[in-house]
């Protein structure tokens, strides 16, 4: 990426309170003043929102240079006035700078100081004296600026406006109307940034208030940001309201564990309890925002079912054991097993993943390890090795910033709003500010796609490879041709993990990138996937993207690990490990943070029942029932570590809480010790240092896979092809314990095209029964105008549509759909 340095000609020079500043053309006065180190009080102004000039707190005096005289030099600056003779203050948050402009703020203009005090006084007349009980008290812009720009006493002796309090604008956001200063930050955020204009200012005058639309609740994935940017305590989060005062909290910088967006957050806690999480400003990644899952889904660690102590199975029952005993039992069990594998989910930190990767090779002597506890393929493994591993912002890989400036972005098997919300926000911003064109190869045009101004290239599940090939060839529908032409001018292709389920699709995506010159990036869903890939928790890759099959790469790692050698045959992938456990070829397994249901195993008994299972767990899961030994491990708040976001950007975090829980790497280190191996993974520092010194492999990168598309399967009469992905807010176990958040999760609906609905004699709102191989579900039908025909979309893991857990199906399966009650 080349960035054009700001040219001197793009700069405008003006004087603020006697200080000369040069700022980019088009800057607002309030920003220019910040450059000069002058803070103008403000409420409605927010750098990430379009200006409104509503609160009038930011008034300044402005002198404009007069028109140039005959010699071309501008005449004396003239004060902006109105009514004539009276200085007319200007809102510094809406007025842009001009060359030669002279600005006087409260610092140098008495009249402005008075004007600001006047506005502040007016803002306070209807503001309640809630500070002692208000969540915002102590971190409140109104409080702070009332101190800096207000009078010490109030002249208001009349009656304040009051309202019954509070109003639930959603299950998780509450509004105390009398506290609201009507700055429209929340409404502008929802409308402009999130694209969810479900709250709006309603009524007039002093009765103006934030209102909701009864038929369209404030169900936005990003609603928590309104609580954070509200400059008063008018918006509060249901979970935090009245729980604490800001000055009683200890804040620890953290990184969100819920997806690969990599949000910088702040975890606020008090005496060992997390009270809230806030978005932390990281301009290169999440800006100032996060999503509601990141903000509010942290209660899962305190719902009361944590494993506090190790457990061992005795006479079929799990019982508490000491660490030494549990380690002894685990070591013995794995030692007796003929062959063991490692199933590590995509949720652990990079350091943990590294420890699993090393444990598998060094202690278990196998490459049977895979982080992909989700639908995956061998083609995907090749794709990741060829196109993804080892890339990152430093190496010129696609970044958030690139998304913001891309002319075209093509989404393949990826629904950003549900699967990587900050990518969604960045693309929406790119669409709004940069006119970025977004195309999605997907079965259905989602609301998220509409909010990015995106265009659907409709493709039934399983046909993606052909559609991608058509884009490459530049032949097909008008939209395909447009997308092809647009990509050829440079663009970005974002590939989601779901594409792995379609034979040939990832091959086609890589070929498309190669052909068009568009840049390619892979966006997994879980926070730990990318880090695990880099750390070598993968059947074909060692740490640093080194190929298992590359002898010199193996030697390099063996040397670093002080081993004679490493297993040289590529390992089994997740599905392979499951199959081998089922067949008995493997009779031991270390499971870390994996729910067997994630693997799509309907019959966990047949898979895990016969093997020796060591499970590193935070809370009970479906694996618990089969575990022979359970080693309790820390949640993200209790450990330090690193996630690697989809860009390949490391996101390190500190432990927020001090507990006795250990991170997975430490548990594995102890287990290795018990088994007679020195893993060298005792502290995060030790692991991180080793990872750094090992660095990236230097061997040749394999070429991208070249898998042909599979023959499309015939769809039998009355059957539809199932398309599915997870809603951001659903039944995921890491959202447990937060009912207010769950209250805004999208309800499960079945989506079909209008044509398909007609063919099946179904209509909007019908309850339909979807029969799958293993069961059925009944959900309400929604017809979608832009959608592939003969396809039905269901959420993967929502209440009433529990595809993976209860039904063990995945996208591409054929299902039978009838109106509920018919059949």
């Amino acid at each position: 990426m080349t960035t054009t340095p700001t040219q001197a000609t793009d700069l405008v020079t003006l004087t603020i309170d006697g200080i000369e500043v040069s700022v980019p053309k088009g800057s607002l006065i309030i920003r220019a003043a910040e450059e000069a180190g002058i803070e103008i009080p403000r409420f409605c102004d927010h750098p990430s929102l379009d200006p409104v000039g509503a609160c009038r707190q930011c008034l300044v005096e402005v002198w404009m240079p007069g028109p140039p005289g005959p010699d071309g030099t501008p005449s004396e600056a003239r004060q902006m006035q109105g009514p004539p003779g009276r200085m007319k203050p200007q809102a510094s948050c809406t007025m842009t700078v001009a060359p030669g402009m002279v600005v006087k703020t409260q610092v140098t203009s008495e009249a402005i100081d008075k004007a600001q005090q006047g506005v502040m006084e007016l803002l306070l007349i209807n503001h309640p004296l809630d500070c002692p009980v208000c969540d915002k008290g102590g971190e409140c812009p109104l409080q702070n600026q009332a101190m800096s720009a207000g009078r010490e006493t109030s002249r208001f002796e009349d009656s304040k406006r009051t309202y019954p309090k509070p109003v639930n604008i959603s299950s998780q956001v509450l509004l105390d109307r009398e506290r609201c200063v009507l700055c429209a930050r929340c409404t502008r955020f929802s409308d402009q940034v999130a694209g969810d204009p479900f709250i709006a200012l309603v009524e007039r005058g002093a009765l103006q208030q934030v209102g909701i639309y009864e038929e369209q609740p404030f169900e936005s994935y990003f609603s928590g940001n309104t609580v954070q940017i509200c400059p008063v305590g008018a918006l509060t989060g249901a979970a935090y309201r009245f729980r604490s005062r800001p000055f009683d909290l200890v804040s620890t910088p953290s990184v969100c564990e819920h997806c690969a967006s990599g949000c910088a957050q702040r975890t606020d806690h008090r005496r060992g309890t997390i009270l809230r999480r806030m978005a932390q400003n990281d301009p290169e990644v999440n800006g100032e925002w996060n999503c509601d899952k990141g903000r509010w889904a942290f209660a899962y660690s305190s719902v009361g079912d944590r494993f506090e102590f190790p457990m061992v199975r005795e006479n079929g029952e799990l019982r508490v054991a000491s660490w030494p005993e549990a380690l002894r039992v685990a070591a013995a069990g794995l030692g007796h097993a003929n062959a063991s594998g490692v199933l590590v989910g995509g949720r652990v930190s990079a350091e943990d993943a590294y420890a699993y990767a090393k444990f598998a090779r060094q202690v278990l002597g196998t490459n049977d390890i895979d982080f992909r506890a989700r639908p995956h393929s061998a083609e995907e493994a090749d794709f990741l090795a060829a196109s993804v591993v080892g890339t990152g912002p430093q190496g010129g890989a696609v970044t958030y910033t690139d998304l913001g400036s891309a002319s075209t972005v093509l989404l393949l098997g990826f629904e950003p709003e549900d699967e990587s919300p900050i990518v969604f926000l960045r693309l929406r911003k790119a669409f709004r500010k940069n006119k970025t064109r977004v195309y999605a190869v997907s079965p259905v045009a989602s609301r998220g796609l509409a909010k990015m101004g995106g265009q659907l290239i409709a493709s039934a599940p399983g046909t993606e490879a052909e559609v991608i090939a058509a884009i490459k060839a530049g032949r097909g529908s008008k939209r395909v041709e447009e997308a092809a032409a647009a990509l050829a001018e440079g663009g970005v292709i974002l590939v989601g993990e779901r594409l792995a389920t379609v034979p040939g699709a990832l091959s086609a995506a890589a070929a498309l990138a190669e052909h068009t010159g568009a840049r390619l990036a892979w966006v997994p869903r879980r926070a730990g996937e990318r880090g695990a890939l880099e750390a070598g928790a993968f059947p074909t890759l060692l740490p640093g993207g080194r190929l298992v099959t590359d002898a010199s790469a193996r030697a390099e790692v063996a040397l670093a690990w002080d081993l004679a050698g490493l297993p040289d045959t590529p390992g089994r992938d997740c599905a392979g490990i499951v199959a081998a456990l089922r067949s008995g070829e493997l009779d031991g397994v270390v499971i870390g943070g994996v729910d067997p249901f994630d693997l799509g195993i309907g019959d966990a008994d047949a898979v895990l029942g016969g093997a020796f299972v060591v499970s590193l767990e935070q809370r009970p899961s479906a694996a618990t029932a089969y575990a022979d030994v359970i080693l309790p491990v820390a949640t993200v708040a209790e450990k330090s570590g690193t996630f690697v976001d989809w860009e390949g950007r490391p996101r390190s975090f500190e432990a927020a809480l001090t507990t006795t829980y250990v991170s997975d790497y430490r548990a594995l280190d102890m287990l290795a010790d018990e088994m007679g191996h020195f893993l060298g993974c005792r502290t995060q520092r030790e692991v991180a240092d080793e990872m750094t010194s090992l660095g990236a492999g230097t061997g040749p990168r394999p070429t991208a896979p070249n898998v042909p598309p599979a023959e499309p399967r015939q769809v039998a009469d009355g059957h539809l092809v199932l398309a599915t992905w997870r809603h951001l807010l659903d039944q995921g176990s890491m959202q447990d314990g937060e009912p207010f958040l769950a209250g805004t999760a999208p309800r499960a609906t079945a989506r079909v095209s209008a044509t398909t609905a007609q063919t099946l004699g179904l209509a909007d709102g019908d309850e339909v029964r979807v029969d799958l191989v293993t069961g059925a579900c009944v959900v309400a039908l929604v017809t979608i105008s832009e959608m592939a025909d003969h396809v039905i979309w269901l959420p993967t893991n929502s209440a009433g549509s529990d595809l993976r857990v209860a039904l063990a199906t995945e996208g591409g399966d054929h299902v039978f759909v009838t109106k509920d009650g018919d059949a």
Partner: protein
Amino acid sequence: MTQLTPILSKFWDAEQSWSLATYEQHDGYRAMDKAFAMEPAAVISAVKDSALRGRGGAGFPTGMKWSFMSPPDGDARYLVVNADESEPGTCKDIPLMMANPHVLLEGVAISSYAIGCKKAFIYLRGEVVHVYRRLLRAVEEAYAAGHLGENIHGTGIDVDIVVHAGAGAYICGEETALLDSLEGRRGQPRSKPPFPGAAGLYARPTSVNNVESIASVPGIILEGVDWFKGMGTEKSAGFGIFSLSGHVKNPGQYEAPLGITLRELLDMAGGMRDPNKKLKFWTPGGSSTPLFTAEHLDVPLDFESVGAAGSMLGTRALQIFDETVCVVRAVDRWIEFYKHESCGKCTPCREGTWWLAQILHRLEHGQGTEADLDKLLDISDNILGRSFCALGDGATSPVTSSIQHFRDEYLAHLEHGGCPFDPQAAVLWATDKESVSA
């Protein structure tokens, strides 16, 4: 003695003055032919040369407004007629549209042609359903007669008119709030720049003009610039409708050259309603313009003179109050109006009018101290010029001007412990002999 100049109101007394037939008998739709034979730029020049200034309150030169619009780029441009007329006391556009709607329609056609607009909108105040019906009917008649629509009078010129009724909010008379409302949003003023001339309705170049401004255009075209400039003063050319209301014998619309005085108008209107009662105060241009008193009877009612005397010509809404009226009570009612109509967008107006109203209400009932008067003035000072749009500015006019002229009357309320006036004495049915006691 200045004479009335009935031009727009010339045949308001005719049988069915509003019908197309009546309009056509009075040279109706002839200015259009003349204008369509000119270049659009020439029409703009004529309006510019006539020195016609906007009749909606601010008095911005109409021709200049048109020439400030972004140059045509082949895409849509709009004329929007502001028929929201909601300023207290203003009653000119509504009677005009009631009595002679076609002069407005002809003005719209000519003005649209001048600025390159093919689709014009008339944004009408929501409450006046009778005017809405009349406008719709007139538009229908004009289309049927070929005065509107496609290929008007065979010239190849197309102009469509959409009449839109608002929902009854004073703020929707403010031009940018009007545009938001017309677009289907909640009416709140927009940030300027961009000005409507650059990005107005649907973000396209738009001219927003008052009903009377546009209705004055056919006359200027037909009779010529000199005819128009022959009336009024040099900087406030032409005629205007003065609406007289309150304690005046014959309230109503008086069309006269700008620069006429209230003394002259009162004479024409038969004097005060009760000749024995003295004029106490009046508004030259509606409630948003600072009050005048009997001292100002000879101020020429043109933009400059009224300004020099400390008020504004505004919309020439002359509300006349005789000595029976309590100024505190009147101001209290006005502020109640502003408080109710404040759109709520900006702090000074939203909170300021709320506060002013409470203080005035107290004072009217004799509660408070003299310090409250200074507080009223200071709050007004904090609103005027600090609010987002002119509604907030206007709200301070009655407060500051009434304290300026009638401070003693405020104090009398405090001394008296309530209003010293008998409110019944000011009403229409009041007589000197009986005063109704409660």
